[in-house]
């Protein structure tokens, strides 16, 4: 069984937000909300600066606090790909998951349920990539099975320096940033 993750090459990413726009149209995200976003993380003092640009989203953690704290089972780990999903019909909008997520990856959809990135599981089931990966003009994202030692994502992670976000929180995130 697959365990999906994402590796994003921060050296190539220009932070253009194409991933955000594509997610919005693909998944019909209402105005004012987005499932992914860009962080421009700059450090230093002018002109000696460094900047890491990151396309961020739900980390589909191996140890997802949003699933643990959900009182109704709406937040769950999908069988296919071990992707963290929300069943909107079961969600009561209590926001416990929002409070538990260290990445601030969730929001309450205007229709009343918690919403977030699905890794475009509807596309992946059809053999496509998540739309953010598919549209990126810099080809900076790799999506794939972390349990497959020969997957493109594992080749990337084995050959490049990388980090994940807020690993101290112990959630075991599956979105990695290549540096």
């Amino acid at each position, binding site marked *: 069984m697959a365990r999906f993750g994402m590796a994003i090459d921060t050296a*190539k990413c*220009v932070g253009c937000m*194409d991933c*955000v726009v594509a997610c919005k*149209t693909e998944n019909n995200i209402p105005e004012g909300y*987005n499932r992914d976003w860009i962080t421009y993380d*700059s450090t230093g003092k*002018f*002109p000696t600066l460094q900047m890491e640009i990151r396309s961020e989203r739900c980390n589909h953690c191996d140890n997802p606090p949003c699933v643990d704290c959900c009182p109704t089972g709406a937040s769950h780990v999908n069988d296919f790909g071990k992707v963290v999903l929300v069943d909107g019909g079961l969600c009561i909008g209590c926001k416990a998951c929002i409070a538990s997520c260290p990445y601030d990856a969730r929001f309450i959809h205007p229709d009343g349920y918690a919403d977030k990135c699905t890794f475009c599981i509807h596309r992946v089931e059809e053999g496509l990539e998540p739309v953010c990966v598919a549209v990126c*003009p810099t080809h900076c994202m790799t999506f794939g099975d972390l349990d497959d030692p020969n997957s493109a994502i594992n080749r990337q992670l084995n050959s490049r320096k990388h980090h994940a976000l807020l690993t101290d929180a112990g959630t075991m995130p599956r979105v990695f940033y290549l540096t």
Partner: protein
Amino acid sequence: MTALTRRRFLKISAATVGTAAAGSALVKAGALFQGKGAATRKGIERIPTYCDLCFWKCGAIATVKDGVLWKIEGNPEDPLSRGRLCPRGTGGAGAHFDPDRLRTPLVRRLKRGEEEWVEATWDEALGIIAEKMDRIRKTYGPEAMALFSHGIGGNFLKHLMKAYGTPNITAPSFAQCRGPRDVGFRLTFGEDVSSPERTDIKNAQCLVLIGSHLGENMHNTQVQEFAEAIENDASIIVVDPRYSIAASKAKYYLPIKPGTDLALILAWMNVIVGENLYDREYVTKYGFGFEQFAASIRTFTPEWAFPETGITPDVIQKTAREMARYRPATLVHPGRHVTWYGDDTQRSRAIALLNALLGSWGRRGGFYTPVSMDVPSYPYPDYPKPAKAKVDNPANKYPFAHETLTTGIREATLTGKPYPIKGWMGYATNLIHALPNEQETIQAIQNLDLLVVVDVVPSELAGWADVVLPESVYLERHDDLNVEWFREPFVALRQPVVEAPHDQKPNWWIAKQLAEKLGLGRYFPWATIDEYFEKRMSDAGLSYEELKRRGIIRGAKQPIYFDEGVPAEFPTPSGKIEFYSVQLAQAGFDPVPKYKRPGSPPPGSFRLLFGRAPVHTFSRTQSNRILADMMDENEVWVNEDIVRRLGLRNGEYVKLKNQDGVVSNRVRLKSTQRIRPDCVYLVHGFGHTAKGLKFPLGKGASDAQLITRYEIDPLMGGTAMNVNFVTLETEAA
């Protein structure tokens, strides 16, 4: 681009590239505009077209679900998008659904600029325009009409205006944008850089960006190739007063003092010549006047440039050597929007000369030679010969202006000299935001008998119009064939994907209807737009049906580098690369570029710089709700230390006041280390004032409004706009 004999030689065979039959999924194309509404369309349709969110014209595939536009992706067959659009293109559906768009023809009801309208039928609106254009033609001659048109969408209107008999057809893309670059390169190599830029970014081993903020400036192919260059570990050198996205990818970031780029380029050339690092064989073979050039730059040492630019001599030397190390695969990017300081043509020429020293023109990793498909024009009747020369550049005041100057036409409209201009038509260009000093534009408009605006949204310029014509957006219309000069030849089709939601019409229809009313119907002999495309495609020996199905037809690859057999020809007066320019000397200009120190901001003031965001194009897209959701207002970037000194706070609203007392709309302050302390920065296109732009109205500040001062490039009439100084005021002030 000027058609050159050599390129005529590179005629393209009709054979198409035998790619996989991606066309099979692309059904039902072309037949949709004829009354097939949402009610009759079921399931998923994928229809190829090409994008209009900017002017790059990327091939796209729109997905329509049950008759409703869903999403837009790149067309994998298209060499511009290579199957991937930029965020604006991906958000193109927002143009179709934009609630602020123009819906029906509008006729002015009150004074100009009051934006009070009567809705009109197309017949009424076009009747008013035809009557006034006819009166202008009879009273002043057809030359008294001017067309300001940006983008391929304006092709049929340009055709109409040529048939009407005016030579005064222009776009801000020359005098307000890339003009100095194209003149500088033409003076040196005999050819323009043009658009899409002939830059071989993906093969560059060293890439130098001078103010070019690729990644924020989102011209798709260039950004894709930039990412490839990064992946290939190209050495990247970025020169910018602001720590841009591109700067964050650079091996060397040079935080230059604004306005001093030419001093840096001269010093780089001084090192490369002085240390014998240039491509001697290339220069000897192709160069003209190298000895005079070398003598002229001898004094421009890194030590000389240091106090001007703020870049230390060792960094200037190191970066010059870096460029030489990778030559000829070193690309010093010529930029695109280069109307900055008034020395722009000479600065661009210096960039051309630096590339010439590195031997990059015509070489892999430098500048390739673009090729194009041979698709003949429609065989229209000959245009009438205008009785008067074009109005924009009297007495050849700007001797190297090879395109028409918007601001020259504005000047003639203001003064009536060399002859009066009494009518303007604006197509898809918002002159209030595009031309410097909006008051001059507004005053010029007062002298007009007719101002017509054709656009998709009610821009500021539309607000001043007598008649506003609502055009359908690109997803709802046909436009002319895109026969691009690029790495490989291709022809692309823009075709309707969905119907226009209201009474909007395509520009070809507008032009044809207006032609009929003006008695110029013979210039539009085709009955339907399909007939026009059929004719052009069959004359090219290509299939229109295939084009409709695939959106694009590619020709066979052609040589694009000297070493592949492209002849090394330089259509300059000497037939060589002109290190020393006799024609410049004869016209009274520096034959080799010289540096002039720019003015400094007065104490307490900051130079106003502006640029692009990846999610917007000019002032055209701020009402697109998908893109507005990415960025709905701009911010003014101010160095953090300055913010602290002024007692301001990150995120608070401030106003900018320029040297002439003009105060901007309120704008959020971005306190950042990513900019020098002597300048501030705005993303262009915000601070809308047009009442009809309900969503973006009043959001952010307009750089255009603050550009009351501009300097004119004496070689070609470009308007340099980075010459304004502002102070920061708190919102209450």
